[in-house]
């Protein structure tokens, strides 16, 4: 397969969606494509792979009409030899077919590496458990997000195995992994990367990984640096209203920033006033959860946040980090819970009306994980701040706050733009800003770096740092361990775990 350069334009009947003129697929390399959510990474990849419905969108590839592009033998060979791992595994899986049968659909049944792939992706899981998972239907038994994701990855590796062993006449191949680690914790993410690079070492293939997880860079540099010459780091950046451009992303840029952040993190101090203090044990939805001060979970601790501090709570996916945040904000009713918020004791018996009266928007605010759900997509950027309990005169400085977080993107057309038309990264920043403008003493941030590109991550962290310096207490909840481990003093890192 030769290097292929693509110019792709995608539009609806009424407006352009995304266009790029310099999208290159280098053969026998693994490309990591970064970029903020919603910028068009998945859509462009799908267009090249031939997955867009021409009846829904107007697509042209290298100036060709999409139907014509789909008929080309190059496109057909690519589809024949390759695999596309979708971001949302549920959209790929058939709810009426057992997982094992789906793992052997079509040509996948001919692959001989299934056992090895499954063993490596489910390394820490007993064989009987894996067998049980494979026997179930996606619905109503509902495998977890991580299990579904690993199943799709297993399919992709089977297809790679087939491609490597069959030696087809036409070697056109393009394996796309769209956010393949979004539902995996770091242990499983690293297992996936290990399998990917080991498979690549056997016989190279062309792959693209679309991701927001910059910590993948550290993992590659630490454990797979023998293969760095075949790895590319690219970033999709905005070059106009709907135009995007691909540029090289320097891994050193990220690694150096991380080192610098780690060196300049603020040490824990007992100077600030305690604004949030949560009991080390609580129970909710019939589950008992505990907060610990150490990774080994031997030292139960009260989760204490002082003004001017950034505290980080970590736990594997699904343990209950978001549940804890919602509990503090009074959105869930616990069976047993106790905390002190700005000196006021609140328990599971506190009447729910206390939170709207005393807490919400006044003393504490929370940034929710999914900006797409948390924001009113039909509102404009400006209207997003309507109805907030802002101090008098605060409206005037709102534009300055917006400008601070959206540097270079502010003008009246941006303020009047509907939220649904913003990119994922812009939405996430707006989501953050809606809470930060309230200037509450406590701010809980659930995955604040979700969907952001590296530039936006730096900007968001700088804003958070300014808020912390002004005396705000920040409680961070994130699976982005590498960044927060670097930023937060280990004395301010708490571990959440389910009690047996």
């Amino acid at each position, binding site marked *: 397969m030769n290097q292929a350069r693509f110019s792709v334009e995608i539009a609806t009947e009424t407006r352009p969606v995304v266009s790029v003129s310099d999208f290159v697929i280098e053969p026998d390399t693994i490309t990591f494509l970064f970029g903020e959510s919603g910028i068009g990474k998945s859509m462009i990849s799908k267009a090249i792979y031939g997955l867009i419905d021409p009846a829904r969108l107007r697509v042209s590839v290298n100036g060709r009409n999409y139907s014509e592009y789909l008929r080309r033998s190059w496109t057909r060979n690519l589809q024949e030899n390759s695999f596309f791992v979708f971001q949302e595994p549920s959209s790929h899986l058939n709810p009426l077919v057992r997982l094992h049968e789906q793992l052997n659909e079509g040509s996948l049944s001919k692959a001989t590496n299934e056992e090895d792939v499954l063993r490596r992706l489910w390394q820490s899981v007993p064989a009987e458990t894996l067998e049980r998972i494979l026997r179930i239907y996606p619905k109503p038994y509902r495998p977890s997000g991580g299990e579904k994701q690993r199943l799709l990855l297993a399919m992709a590796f089977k297809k790679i195995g087939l491609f490597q062993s069959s030696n087809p006449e036409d070697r056109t191949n393009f394996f796309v992994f769209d956010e393949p680690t979004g539902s995996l914790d770091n242990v499983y993410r690293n297992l996936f990367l290990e399998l990917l690079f080991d498979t690549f070492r056997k016989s190279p293939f062309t792959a693209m990984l679309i991701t927001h997880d910059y910590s993948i860079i550290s993992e590659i540099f630490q454990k797979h640096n023998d293969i760095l010459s075949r790895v590319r780091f690219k970033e999709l950046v905005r070059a106009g209203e709907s135009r995007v451009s691909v540029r090289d992303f320097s891994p050193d840029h990220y690694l150096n920033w991380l080192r610098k952040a780690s060196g300049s993190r603020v040490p824990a101090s007992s100077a600030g006033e305690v604004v949030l203090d949560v009991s080390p044990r609580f129970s909710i939805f019939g589950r008992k959860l505990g907060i610990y001060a150490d990774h080994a979970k031997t030292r139960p601790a009260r989760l204490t946040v002082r003004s001017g501090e950034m505290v980080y709570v970590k736990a594997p996916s699904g343990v209950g980090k978001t549940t804890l945040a*919602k509990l503090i*904000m009074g*959105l869930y009713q616990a069976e047993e819970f106790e905390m002190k918020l700005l000196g006021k004791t609140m328990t599971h018996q506190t009447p729910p009306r206390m939170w*709207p009266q005393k*807490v*919400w*928007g*006044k003393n*504490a*605010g*929370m940034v*929710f*994980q*999914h900006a797409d*759900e*948390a*924001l*009113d*997509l*039909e*509102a404009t950027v400006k209207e997003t701040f309507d*109805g*907030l*309990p802002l101090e008098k005169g605060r409206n005037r400085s709102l534009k300055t706050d917006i400008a601070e977080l959206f540097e270079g993107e502010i003008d009246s057309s941006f303020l009047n733009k509907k939220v649904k038309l913003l990119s994922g990264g812009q939405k996430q920043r707006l*989501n953050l800003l*809606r*809470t930060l403008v*309230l200037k509450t003493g406590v701010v809980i941030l659930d995955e604040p770096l979700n969907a952001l590109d590296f530039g936006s991550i730096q900007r968001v962290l700088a804003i958070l740092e300014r808020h912390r310096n002004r005396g705000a207490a920040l409680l961070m909840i994130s699976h982005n361990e590498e960044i927060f481990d670097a930023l937060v003093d280990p004395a301010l890192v708490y571990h959440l775990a389910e009690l047996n």
Partner: protein
Amino acid sequence: MKPIQHLFGHKDKRWALSWVLVVLVLFLWDLHFLNRPSLKLVVSGFINTMIISGLVILFTLVLGWVFTILLDAMQSRRREKTHFVVTFLLNLVRSIPQIVGVLFGYVIVTTLHRQGIISSKMQLFPLLAFAMALFIFPEVVDLMRERIDHYRKLDFFNAMRVCGIRESRIVNFNILWRNSRIHIFNKLISVFGIAVFLQCSVDFIISVGLSTDVNPISLPPTLGSLLAHYDSKQDIQSIASLFSDVSYFPQLFTIHLQGVSVAFLIVFTLVSIYNISNGYAERNQL
């Protein structure tokens, strides 16, 4: 050229425009061929039907919105008993077939009219529309409750609440107005269709004398009552004569215009509303 393409490019707009144009053409045709007293009857029957149906939309929307907010407030404030009572009453209204309920409402309104308690159209039309809206509005409540429940399940609702935005603003403005008005509007198009259909059916039933308590003579004419009119029935019966004499067909459009016009207006209006509603739902991907 573009505005015309824009207008005809969407099914809902195409049908809305077609409805207006066809009604206009029919009026011009009737103006030429139909005798003046009959023309006056058809025109006022059509206008009265449209006014009452328009009022039904208004009352349905107001009743639907008020009950939705009431039920939502009771639920969020955990007033379970009151919530149960209001839900029970709503279900009671829902359990009565719309046509039976409206017929019963009409009997009351027309009795009041016959006794002289209600005299003018200004009083009569809102009461007739209200009687109809009373049995249609639960459908709007269902839609609105569904929309609110959908947004409550998402982070949307909680994310706004924890920012200190008032719950009433989130429900009324952010959810119902900003994010559901297209759905509500689509429902109101259907309500308009239901109102025309119910009105024609009930007026027809009353006019042919099913309810002996009601004297339809003094009621303002509507399309339904006109259809039950002796002349109209004769006109429609004349369609049957086509089986024995096909050459009679052209005369349907010149001689038997009252009945044919009324029947056509009812059927064409209902077909148009059906297509407008479908087209609107398709265009907005509801």
